[in-house]
Structure formats: structure tokens, C-alpha cells
């Protein structure tokens, strides 16, 4: 991980506060109370006094902040919503394919699991963080260190609840020798990238980031109450799925399904202001739309992802098929519309400048065209 120099003097840039008061109060007022927080938990990961609570049952909070927050500002530095740069569209990619793992059982084609398993085999990483579950579908973070651990079907598959992946990432980074693999929804991945831009150790030690497509996620307690009211017994639940606008809960002895639209009331605010469907910052994005049933759509964006894909192909670990990018693009457009839910004052300066430039370019072009037309 590079040669390390030892130093006795160093400087750290700290974020500018927006209001008077401790840094946590700033984050709370600007990001959490305004409903922009995505529950990525990056702030909880960095807080040196460990006061920020990330639980699937409540908003991010720091109950004893008045006493315990030391006003270091690390949480603000870690937060990707403090200065919000919305991400959208399908994003850049170097390969687009549909895949179905021959080794694992997952939500769709288990390609997420296959990527991490192969990365472990290749020695690219020595541990990967997975979101598993307990008896009642509470998300539980697993540190996966061997391919065999992935035969456990509780570890693979989608859990539609916020999971505290990032606080575990800190522990993983502390013990890893070869590097860590992370899986996450767009908010988690954006959180990872923000951490990487702020703190070198995360640049050095995270080697593979697999992102999931995502329309929205839920707080566990709200999802649970909702499903129970629909007659779902979580102890008997074997799979949750959202396909073609329907939420399907498959239990050992029956099935319950209803339109996802009905769940709008429990969609967290953080998701309502999220525009990233295709997980544009991941090394590899994986989702279900765009490929036939039983296959995962795989969007390879970075060289490291390509390397792993080549390895999977070499070993014959998966079957491959074609992707229909139009349907993915349709969903990315749909999610992009949520940009209207972000108040102007919370958009980052960088984003506004970019937007201004784009508009000017467009206007120039239009003016030119108009001129040509009138001539």
C-alpha cells in the first residue's frame, strides 16, 4: 500500500459550518432534519467518539451530542449530502452483460456474490462485506472471508432495509491485508466514494465496490410493520422481491403481492431526493432490470471490474446473456425526476456550475440553430 512517510507536522482542511453551533448540529439541521440523509452511515463510521447511531429502526442520530460531540467536523466531511451533487443516468461503462452464476443462489443471477467470490479467489481482496439477515429479516452485516461462506442463502439476496454497512467497513479496513470488497445501494457507494476522497486509508484499502441498482429502500421497522399488516409472517419469509412494479413476499407456504406504489408512504425522505438508479460510482453495478428472469444485469465501469469479469469467464463460473439497456434507461430517467425534490440551496456549488454550463451550451446551440433557421 505504497511507501509511508512519517511526519511530525500536518494540516487538515475542515469544512465550513453553515450555522453556529457544533458540527453535529450543522449536519443534523442541514442534512437529517431536512430529510436529505440517505442513512449511508458514513458519519457514524468516522465519528471519533462513536456517538452517532446508525440503526435500521431510526433516523441517524447522536442523542448525547451536546455533551459528547467534540466538534471535529469529521461527520460533515464524510457526508455526501452536505454538499449534494445529484448523480443520474446509466453512467459510463466498459461492458454491459447479463449473467447467471453457476455456483451461487442469489436474488437474480447471483452475480454480485459471484463477483465478490471471484475477487476473493483472485486475491484481490481478503474480505467482503455482505448484508445478510436474521430470522426476521433484520439486516446483519457479514465479513465474508471465504467462498464457502457464500453458500449460505441468508447472506445473498436482497434485503429491502437500510443496513449499517459502513460502520463495519471501518473494522474491515483496520484488519485487512489485501483489501476489502464492499456491496451497496447507490447511497452506500456514494458514501464510500466520499470517504475515499476525504481519507486516504479508504483509497488504499478498498479494492472492489459492487453497486446495486436501486429505486428505494426502507427502514426495517416500517417495512416490517407494513408487511405484517399485509399478512406476511417474517419468520416464514424466504424471499422479498420488487419486479414489474410489484412487491412480492414469498413465504414457505404462500405468497403475498401488492403494487409497490402503495408503499410510497413509507419511502424514506432520503430516497425521495435520490436520483441515482444505476449506481454510477460503483466499479461494477448489478441489478435485475434489463435482463431475463434468473439473470443479473452487470454494468462494468472500472478496469478492476473488467478483470474480475474476465476471471469469471475464464473459469466458466457463469452463463451470460444479452441486456436490454432501454429499460434501464427508462428507470434512470424516472429516478432523475426526483431532482425536483432537492431544494436549490442544498445543491453543491460544483453541481450548479455544471448545470449552468450545460444550459449555456444548450442555449448557444439553440440560438445557433435558430439563427440558421431564420437565415
Amino acid at each position, binding site marked *: 500500500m505504497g511507501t509511508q512517510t*512519517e511526519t*511530525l*507536522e*500536518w494540516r487538515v482542511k*475542515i469544512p465550513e459550518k453553515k450555522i453556529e453551533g457544533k458540527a453535529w448540529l450543522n449536519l443534523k439541521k442541514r442534512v437529517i432534519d431536512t430529510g436529505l440523509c440517505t442513512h449511508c452511515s458514513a458519519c457514524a463510521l468516522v465519528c*471519533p*467518539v462513536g456517538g452517532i447511531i446508525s440503526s435500521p429502526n431510526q433516523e441517524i442520530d447522536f442523542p448525547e451530542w451536546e455533551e459528547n460531540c467534540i466538534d471535529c*467536523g469529521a461527520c460533515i466531511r464524510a457526508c455526501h449530502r452536505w454538499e449534494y451533487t445529484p448523480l443520474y443516468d446509466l453512467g459510463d461503462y466498459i461492458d454491459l452483460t447479463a449473467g447467471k452464476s453457476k455456483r451461487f443462489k442469489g436474488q437474480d443471477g447471483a452475480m454480485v456474490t459471484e463477483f465478490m467470490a471471484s475477487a476473493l479467489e483472485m486475491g484481490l481482496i481478503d474480505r467482503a462485506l455482505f448484508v445478510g439477515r436474521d430470522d426476521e429479516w433484520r439486516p446483519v452485516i457479514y465479513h465474508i472471508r471465504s467462498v464457502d461462506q457464500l453458500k449460505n442463502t441468508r447472506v445473498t439476496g436482497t434485503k429491502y432495509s437500510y443496513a449499517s454497512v459502513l460502520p463495519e467497513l471501518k473494522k474491515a479496513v483496520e484488519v485487512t491485508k489485501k483489501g476489502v470488497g464492499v456491496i451497496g445501494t447507490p447511497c452506500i457507494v456514494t458514501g464510500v466514494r466520499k470517504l475515499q476522497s476525504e481519507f486516504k*486509508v479508504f483509497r488504499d484499502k478498498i479494492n472492489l465496490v459492487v453497486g446495486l441498482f436501486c429505486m428505494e429502500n426502507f427502514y426495517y421497522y416500517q417495512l416490517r410493520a407494513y408487511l405484517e399488516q399485509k399478512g406476511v409472517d417474517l419468520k416464514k419469509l424466504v424471499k422479498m422481491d420488487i419486479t414489474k412494479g410489484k412487491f412480492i413476499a414469498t413465504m414457505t407456504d404462500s405468497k403475498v403481492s401488492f403494487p409497490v406504489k402503495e408503499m410510497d408512504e413509507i419511502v424514506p425522505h432520503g430516497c425521495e431526493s435520490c436520483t441515482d438508479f444505476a449506481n454510477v460510482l460503483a466499479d461494477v453495478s448489478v441489478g435485475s432490470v434489463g435482463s431475463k428472469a434468473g439473470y443479473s444485469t452487470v454494468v462494468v465501469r472500472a478496469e478492476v471490474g473488467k478483470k474480475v469479469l474476465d476471471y469469471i469467464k475464464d473459469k466458466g463460473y457463469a452463463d451470460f446473456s444479452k441486456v436490454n439497456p432501454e429499460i434501464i434507461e427508462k428507470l434512470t430517467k424516472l429516478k432523475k425526476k426526483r431532482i425536483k425534490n432537492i431544494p436549490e440551496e442544498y445543491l453543491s456549488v460544483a453541481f450548479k456550475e455544471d448545470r449552468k454550463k450545460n444550459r449555456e451550451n444548450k442555449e448557444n446551440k439553440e440560438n445557433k440553430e435558430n439563427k440558421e433557421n431564420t437565415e
Partner: protein
Amino acid sequence: MIKIKVPKLKMLDSVKLHVDALLTGAKEAIRPGTITIEYPRERRKLPDNFRGYILFSPERCKSCWQCSFVCPANAIKMELASNNRYYPSIDYAKCIFCHFCVDTCPVTALRPTKIHDVVYKDLEEMYTPTEGMVNPPKIIREEKYTVEYVVEGRDLILKRTREMDNLIPEIEPHAEVKEYSTCFDPESCLACGLCVNSCPVEAISITTVGQERRLKIDREKCYGCGICVNVCPMHILKLVKRPEEGG
């Protein structure tokens, strides 16, 4: 797993062993002092690496906390002294005399003794503050002989001498390793200042200038205790060897 079989004795052997035992008992009755030691008038000769009462030299201690970290019985508590440094104290109600602390101490500030017969009135008294660890406890001693168990043939013989061995063995202190704290990954620093607050000798400072925090380790003040290294939530500090003076 290896199982050790209980030897099956023949009737005759069994009788012989019983007779042996009775004879030994009879011998002790006629001429006492062939089996047991008459404590406190006699003292058993103890091996040099006996693990007894622990002594402490504050002038050597670097307040590195290693003893308290390693103690499996949680018997060591670091107490804040008047010079703003932390020193160990031992609760002998908890101590299991493993001497892991003695072995761990990098500067031989903790030393072993063979003292193992301290009397306490109650559990509270067994808590020994730092001051109580500097000198050996005051014990009125009456012993006149040192007794050593020696195996001769099939017999265990008690050898008595008038020579009293030293209960506090001379320990050669380790060569001192001089170190100081440095940051090897400043780009991962949170600027939280926990290191600054943890330093017992104020060798680390943090100053805020505009939107920037400046951290500085004073190499001359730092005496290499490593507390900041343990405290830093990002684990970006480490101790490095001080170059030899004049070399």
C-alpha cells in the same frame, strides 16, 4: 486426547504401599520436620523466577498502559498521579500472579519478588495504590531457616540451612528503547484532536487557522509512551526509534 490409565495394583503392592504410608506417618510423629515446613519459623526456598508481590519503579515507567492492557484478571488500574502521568495500581483481590504485566513492561518498571505471604484485613485493603507498590510490604519475619525439598532416590528430603535467600531478586533492566510518535498517514487524519488530549506530556498540539487544523508532534517532548497511538481512531500514528544520540 490421551487418557492416562489408573494403574491396577495387585493385592500385595497395595498392602506394601499402605504400610509405607503408615511408616512415614510414624516417622514424622517420632521425629517431626521431615515432611512439613514449620512456617513461619522456617521459610521454603523459592525458585528465582517465583511470581509473587510486584514492585514498581515510577522513575522508569513510561505510562504506556501495556501492563493494564495485558492483565487477564483486570487487576491493574492506571491512576492519575499528581504529575499528570498515569501509573499502575494493583488489586490483589483480583491478581492471579501470572506476571504478564511484569513480562510486558518494556522498561522493567515492574519487578517480581518472592513475597507471597502478605496479610490483609479485608478485600478493600487488597487494592494496592501506586505508592504501595514502590516498596515491599512491611512484614514481621521470624524465620531462622531456609528449607529446600530435595529428591533422593525414592525419598523426599528436607534440607535446612541458616542461609536466608533474598526475597527480592536482582533484575537486570532491559536496555531502554527510545521512541517517539509520528503520523504515517496524515491524509487520513480526522483532526479530532483525541491524540492531543491523550498525551500526558503535551507533546502534541492542534491549532486552528481559518478552515485548517494544524497538528504537530514535538519530538523533544514526546517520550514514546504510545498512548496516542492507541487512542487515534484512524490508527495513523506509530512509534519510531529515536536515532542514537551523537550517531
